């Protein structure tokens, strides 16, 4: 495990589920982790935009709809091992259940922050792995 990864574990950004993803990657599915993570990014950004739009409603806030989007985000974050993002979703959901507008705003800000951090770190992680693979390729040329 490289230093960045163990750092992310230590910080609670990622949990063992991420390791499970890595274990599922092999020669038959060599890009599995990045494929899943990219789908996750795409889905999450859509959901985060929805949540922000719902919170911007001046009049009646649809807490129920927020809860639905949150459940989706929570589920997929947990499925890829994004522990901190998942935890913020939990707190956010509590706020929606209490119809707590201020609480929801705070939670959304935290969620957006955690998500950005996660995305940056995962990109970094993939870059490191890519460079490592390239370096390995130079030393051990591919026999084709």
């Amino acid at each position, binding site marked *: 495990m490289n230093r960045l990864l163990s750092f992310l574990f230590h910080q609670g950004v990622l949990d063992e*589920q991420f390791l*499970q*993803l890595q*274990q*599922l990657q*092999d020669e*038959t*599915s060599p890009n*599995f982790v990045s*494929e*899943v993570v990219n*789908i*996750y990014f795409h*889905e999450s950004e859509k959901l985060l935009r929805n949540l922000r739009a719902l919170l911007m409603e001046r009049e009646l806030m649809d807490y129920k709809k927020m809860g639905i989007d949150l*459940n*989706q985000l*929570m*589920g*997929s974050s*947990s*499925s*890829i*091992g994004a522990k901190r993002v998942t935890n913020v979703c939990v707190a956010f959901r509590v706020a929606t259940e209490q119809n707590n507008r201020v609480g929801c705003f705070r939670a959304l800000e935290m969620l957006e922050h955690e998500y950005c951090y996660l995305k940056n770190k995962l990109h970094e992680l993939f870059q490191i792995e890519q460079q490592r693979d390239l370096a390995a390729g130079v030393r051990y040329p591919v026999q084709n």
Partner: protein
Amino acid sequence: MGLAAESQFHVLAVDDSIIDRKLIERLLKTSSYQVTTVDSGSKALEFLGLCENDETNPNTPSVFPNNHQEVEVNLVITDYCMPGMTGYDLLKKIKESSSLKNIPVVIMSSENVPSRINRCLEEGAEEFFLKPVRLSDLSRLKPHMKKTKLKHQKQETEQKFENSEIIQNDQKQTPKSQIQHSETESQSQTQLQAHSTIDQQQQSLQQGNNNKRKNMEQGLSSDTDRTRPRYSGIATVV
């Protein structure tokens, strides 16, 4: 590709989340299962050959006339929380269907709600997995699939047995007709067929095992190739 020594188990995975679908598909493939994924309960039922009930009888699902479960599904694994038809609804529909009720169903959920778990198990779910599902969880699936595959094979051999009776009776009684002229052949055959249906029950006990083995060796069974789809209840006689 050739005949597999042991045919693969086929799992139908149902989840509205694209990420979870991708995950479960990978988990199942890694465990050497054949996988089909769908994103809703209604699509799952469609795949299984069961159409949604219409207005006439809301309680009895009807089977698609063209699809007698041509693709064999050995297990259904479904998410609990789905829009429209929940995993629980899907479980109920499967267990209420005479053609599908023997398929083992496993429920997955991200929430650990004991009442929900109990409800599902009571309705006939074999297992309840908490998400995220791990590779180690999947090892619990095989015993359920093996159990029903055995049952299915038993049903099939019984069906083949029945069909082979009709063939064997004809064959036994037609040696003479084969020597006869072709014009009269069809005549005698229809007569013999009438005979065989009447005598079938008496003779079946005696001829039993010989017929079965003989027909399987002769390749009359449509199911010697296990990789071909199975026809439940409708064995094709070549």
